[in-house]
């Protein structure tokens, strides 16, 4: 017995140095291997995201033929144009109102679904997420057809109730309303899913304890649900703000910026200038105006995600 133990120990001590050096070599190689595994990703991101982002800044300082450096000339030109200021205004209205209503509808529907018996929740969630699943370009086409001036299905309903027809896409203000409506329709399900996931992560005991203390439903919402969901709500809202602010599909398909340039957002206006009119530098300058707002949102999102990571981990 003692003999076998002795032999085993001896074998182990003999093996130990080789294994340690093996681990040493392993540790040495480890970071190299890890770096090699990241290399395709680093290449894609640096060649197709970081380089274009900086190239865009350079491009925006050239003249239309890209032969001469004109400094801030394109920016100065844009800032002196009324249409550009309308784009700024419309982008802000579009993003803020669309995100507000998406968040509101998402919050309401998430609570409604959470009220249901667990068995039925899946079905409702599945049904209400459909707008998010259809590619936005194609559903925008469907909405365009719903708003079509001569065949509008909405106007049919309005007329049958004795109301006047609404010029959904030909009146500038109604057109602004319509593109925001479509964006809310598309984005609200995303909020619904995020909020529902957050609601599920609130511990049931908190609500039970509040019920024993005699808290009303509203008090429970304000003092338990909102504080517990605050972080994920902030992340979702900021993320949606970026996506909505940079949105292209809805406006391009439904109005292409018209009537009278009233529905242009940064993305469609830079597409018009850069691709349609062939003035790439001016288009680049237009789209770069999105950068400050995106950067600020990104910083706050990152902070929120980090904080959440710490809370969970």
């Amino acid at each position: 017995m003692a003999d076998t133990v002795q032999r085993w120990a001896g074998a182990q001590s003999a093996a130990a140095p080789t294994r340690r050096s093996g681990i040493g070599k392993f540790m040495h190689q480890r970071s190299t291997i890890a770096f090699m595994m990241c290399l395709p990703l680093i290449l894609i991101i640096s060649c197709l995201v970081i380089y274009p982002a900086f190239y865009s800044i350079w491009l925006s300082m050239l003249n239309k033929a890209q032969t001469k450096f004109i400094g801030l000339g394109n920016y100065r030109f844009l800032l002196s144009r009324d249409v550009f200021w309308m784009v700024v205004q419309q982008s802000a209205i579009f993003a803020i109102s669309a995100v507000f209503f998406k968040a509101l509808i998402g919050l309401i529907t998430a609570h409604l679904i959470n009220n249901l018996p667990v068995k039925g929740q899946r079905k409702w969630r599945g049904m209400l997420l459909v707008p998010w699943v259809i590619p936005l370009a194609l559903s925008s086409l469907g909405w365009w057809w719903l708003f079509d001036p001569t065949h509008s299905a909405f106007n049919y309903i309005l007329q049958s109730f004795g109301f006047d027809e609404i010029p959904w896409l030909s009146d500038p203000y109604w057109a602004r309303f319509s593109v925001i409506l479509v964006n809310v329709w598309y984005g609200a399900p995303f909020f619904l899913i995020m909020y529902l996931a957050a609601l599920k992560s609130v511990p049931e005991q908190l609500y039970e304890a509040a019920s024993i203390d005699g808290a009303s439903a509203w008090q429970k919402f304000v003092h338990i649900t909102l504080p517990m969901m605050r972080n994920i709500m902030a992340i979702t809202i900021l993320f949606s703000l970026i996506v909505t602010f940079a949105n292209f599909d809805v406006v391009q398909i439904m109005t292409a910026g018209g009537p009278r340039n009233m529905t242009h957002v940064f993305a469609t206006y830079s597409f018009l200038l850069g691709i349609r009119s062939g003035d790439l530098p001016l288009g680049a300058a237009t789209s770069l105006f999105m950068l400050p707002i995106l950067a600020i949102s990104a910083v706050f999102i990152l902070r929120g995600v980090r904080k959440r990571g710490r809370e969970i981990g």
Partner: protein
Amino acid sequence: MSTAAVSVPSTRAQTKRSSLRRSRRWALIASYVFLIMFAIFFLIPPYYMVVTAFKTDAEVAHMATNPWIIADGATLDQFKILLTQTDFLIYFKNTAIVTVAVVCITMVVSVLAAFALGRMKFWGSGLLATGIFLTYLVPDTLLFIPLFQIVKAVGLLNSYWGMILVYPTLTVPFCTWIMIGYFQSIPKELDEAALIDGAGHMQMLTKIFIPVALPGIIAATIFAFTVSWAAFVYPMAFLYSSDQQVLTVGTVTSLIRADVYKWGMLMAGALLAAAPPLIIYAFLMDYYIAGLTAGATKG
């Protein structure tokens, strides 16, 4: 005496409980009523698209009947015209090629990188992970103009191969980000056990991490698929001839000919184009939702 004293509070509790149950039932009914209203709002466009796609051209054009129902009988003519007289099938083929290629590239690149960043801490790995998250927040509408120049310089302007080059900017950052989360959630003991058994890094990845993180991989694959299927800005800016076009842009631009909008055919096209993501969603809803929420809940 004693029984009376006991019975009084118990009946009070009973009435309170039944009123509670009644108010709960009313809350449930109200929830259903409001949910039905929201469901109608959310499902109006897809419903109307389906209705239009099965109508005859005459019914769509004459507006004599209620537009919300099919009055003159359903027909498959719109689909027939779409598939035989237009370039729809070419768009479908192009989109399928681009999407499959982009999904493969995305998954290989992001699984490798996420494994390295999530499990093998190395110099600068934290910084790189943060950087990936930040690039995910850079929208395509900011990049399409400089990318136009790059795609042109590479000689892939007006070619769907150019899409395979640029779509990974939409998919890779997010897929890597959620895969890092999935890989990090796997217990440390697993790779220690694998190391003791003498597994190399690649073996560890293929034999342990990919099978264990399969739900995450499915979620990321679905994300990459839906994003590249629905991409609109890049093909709108980089593709202009019909034989290279993809579904989203092809349907909303090329199918509209002259001033005559053939709405029945357009809606049939939109429905067929939206079908693959919808089918995947119908069968893999839980993975789809896991992928959506993973970005913020796993950090």
